[in-house]
C-alpha cells in the first residue's frame, strides 16, 4: 500500500515538474511576444490578446488551408512575431501566397506586428534553420516535429 502511494506521489511529482516547466515556457514565450502588440499590454491582458489577435487567427488560417499547409511556427523577433508557414507545393503557390499576405494584413489591422513567411516543405534551408537556430520558436500547427 505504502509503495503504491509512493509511486503515485512520484508520478504526481513528475507530472507537476513537467507542468511547471511547460507553464514556465508558455509564460516566457508570451512574455517575448508581448512587444508585438501595437497597443501595449501587460500580464494576463497581454497573454489574452496575443492568443486572440495573433495565435488563434494564425491557427484558424492554417486549419482552413489544411490541404496545403503542413507546419506553422511562431518565433518572437523583437517587436515582431515571425510566422513561418510551410506548405506542400512544387511550383510556388500564388493563391496560397496571396492568402498569406491577406492574413498578414488582417493581423496588422488586428493590432499585431507580424512577419509571415511562406516556404515549401522541401525548401532546402528555412525549416532546418528554424529548428536548429537559437531563436525561441513554437510550433502552432501541424504534426509535431
Amino acid at each position, binding site marked *: 500500500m505504502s509503495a503504491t502511494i509512493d509511486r503515485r506521489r512520484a508520478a504526481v511529482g513528475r507530472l507537476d515538474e513537467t507542468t511547471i516547466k511547460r507553464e514556465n515556457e508558455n509564460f516566457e514565450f508570451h512574455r517575448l511576444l508581448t512587444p508585438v502588440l501595437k497597443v501595449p499590454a501587460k500580464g494576463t491582458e497581454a497573454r489574452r490578446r496575443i492568443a486572440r489577435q495573433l495565435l488563434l487567427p494564425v491557427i484558424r488560417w492554417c486549419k482552413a488551408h489544411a490541404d496545403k499547409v503542413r507546419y506553422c511556427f511562431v518565433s518572437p523577433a523583437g517587436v515582431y512575431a515571425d510566422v513561418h508557414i510551410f506548405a506542400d*507545393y512544387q511550383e*510556388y503557390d*500564388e493563391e496560397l*501566397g496571396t492568402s498569406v*499576405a491577406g492574413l498578414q494584413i488582417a493581423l*496588422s489591422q488586428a493590432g499585431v506586428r507580424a512577419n509571415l513567411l*511562406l516556404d515549401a516543405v522541401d*525548401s*532546402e*534551408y528555412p525549416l532546418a534553420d528554424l529548428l536548429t537556430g537559437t531563436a525561441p520558436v513554437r510550433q502552432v500547427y501541424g504534426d509535431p516535429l
Partner: protein
Amino acid sequence: MATRSEHATKVVENKNLLAALDVDRWPHWATTIVFYTALHSLEQLLAEAGLHPQNHRQRNELLTELHTTAFCTYYNLYMASRHARYESSDSFLRKFPVTRVRNVVAGSWLSVIEKYVEDELKRIDAGN
C-alpha cells in the same frame, strides 16, 4: 535616408539591369532584381510620407497599413526573391520555371506594382 527621387533612380537602374540580363540564363537573379525594383517603387510612396523602413519587417508592416492593395502582389514577389536568394538554382527553378519568371514575376507582378505606384504618385502630385 533615401528620398523619393533616389528611390526612383534605383528603380530605373534595376530596370536597366533587368533589360540587359539574360533572364533565361539567370532567372534567380532576374527575380531578385524584379523584387528590388518593386521594393524601391513602393519606397517612393513611403518616402513621400516621411517613412524610411530599415528592414523587410518594418517595410512589410508599413505596406500592410498603408498600401494593402499592392501588398499581396509585393508579398508574392518577396517570397519569390527569398526562394531565389536562399535556394539552389534547381530548387528555385522547380518553384519558378523560367517562363513563369519572365511572364509572371517580371511581367504581371511587376506591372501591378508599377501601375499602383504610378497611380499613387499621380494622386500625391496632384494634391501638392
